[in-house]
């Protein structure tokens, strides 16, 4: 891990186990479906962050507003100085999304468990069903950092520009337009299928190894560089709702150290439903 641009944002499962009782550390399991994960057992002392309820705006489609973030941190007993260790279900996608939102609200020390829940369980590390409770804390967050996020007009504006790269991290079938509206995810459907013109397809999972840990830095550099996703360019990552792309955003920003990377969380569920935006359909490159 030491060759990564910012190795301090990753911890091993062993490190996490060594810090289960560290008062400066708060371990958070970020789940899409807590009933299939956290509620069945979790890292001892880990608190649940429910992606749908805690990380999203209660009414409109948006990430949680600053006040909600402050309340969440307060409920978790976290202050701006707390080290937040994230992991979660679904291959750490939603933990990466939480990482991204916590960075938007300026939390300094956020880290991901490399390999996440899957590796923790694979290694036979301790599991608990106890729900921890914490003394409430006061948390004051700065204004959202807009530099980490792209919106639809931002993406429209850079279409065709060579100093930008759009990275579509969905599966080749989604990229090629074979899947528009997975029946399992009713709120994530799109009127049109395909991809944003000019986007290259580098599925998120190509950044990880069999055990869900991240590939070595050289392999990552080769993976993205081969498709013109280089640090000289600004990069916008997207998927369907922004969770897989936050995993890629994490890789490009923290493991490879690219200076300008944003996550377009509106992603295909916005672009594929928008009126008048261009759509491309072609064979996936990778």
């Amino acid at each position, binding site marked *: 891990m030491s060759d990564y641009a910012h190795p301090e944002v990753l911890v091993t499962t062993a490190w996490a186990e060594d810090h289960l009782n560290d008062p400066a550390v708060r371990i958070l399991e970020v789940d*899409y*479906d807590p009933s*299939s*994960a956290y509620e*069945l*057992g979790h890292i001892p002392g880990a608190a649940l962050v429910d992606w749908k309820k805690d990380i999203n705006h209660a009414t409109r489609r948006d990430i949680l507003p600053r006040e909600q973030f402050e309340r969440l941190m307060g409920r978790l007993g976290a202050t701006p100085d707390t080290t937040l260790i994230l992991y979660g*279900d*679904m*291959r750490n*996608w939603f933990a990466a999304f939480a990482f991204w939102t916590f960075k938007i609200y300026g939390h300094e020390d956020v880290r991901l468990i490399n390999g996440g*829940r*899957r590796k923790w*369980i*694979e290694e036979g590390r301790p*599991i608990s069903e106890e729900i921890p409770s914490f003394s409430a804390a006061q948390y004051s967050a700065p204004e959202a950092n807009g530099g980490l996020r792209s919106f639809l007009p931002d993406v429209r504006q850079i279409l065709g520009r060579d100093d930008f790269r759009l990275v579509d991290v*969905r*599966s080749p*079938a*989604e990229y090629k337009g074979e*899947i528009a509206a*997975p029946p*399992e*995810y009713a709120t994530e459907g799109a009127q049109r299928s395909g991809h944003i013109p000019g986007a290259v397809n580098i599925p998120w*999972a190509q950044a990880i190894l069999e055990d869900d840990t991240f590939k070595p830095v050289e392999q990552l550099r080769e993976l993205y560089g081969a498709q013109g996703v280089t640090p000289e360019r600004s990069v916008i990552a997207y*998927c*369907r709702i922004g*969770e*897989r792309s936050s995993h890629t955003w994490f890789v490009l920003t923290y493991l490879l150290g690219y200076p300008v990377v944003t996550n377009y969380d509106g992603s295909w569920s916005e672009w594929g439903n928008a009126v008048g935006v261009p759509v491309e359909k072609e064979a996936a490159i990778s």
Partner: protein
Amino acid sequence: MGQRRRRAGGEGGGNLLSTTRIHSIDLSGAEDLCTEPGALERVRRAYAALGPGDRLDVRAPVAEHAFAVRAWARKNAIRVVEDGPGPDGATRLVLEAVHGQA
């Protein structure tokens, strides 16, 4: 589709024979894509479709998924009649539906 197998039925067996329907589900590749339900959700749905006495044979190559199936079965008082490595080394869990649904 499930297979039908005849086995001794009822407490103590006796001469009665009942028919057990065995359904299979393979969790390999579950959660690789974001287009299918999660691994445990697939098991939940398959289990819910069982009739009383039917069995669900789950192949779970990923320890996280096997863990989830065991924990969910325990929480819902579902009988796990087999739990161990299958012929290919992947964990195999066989669940039996007593009342048909969890």
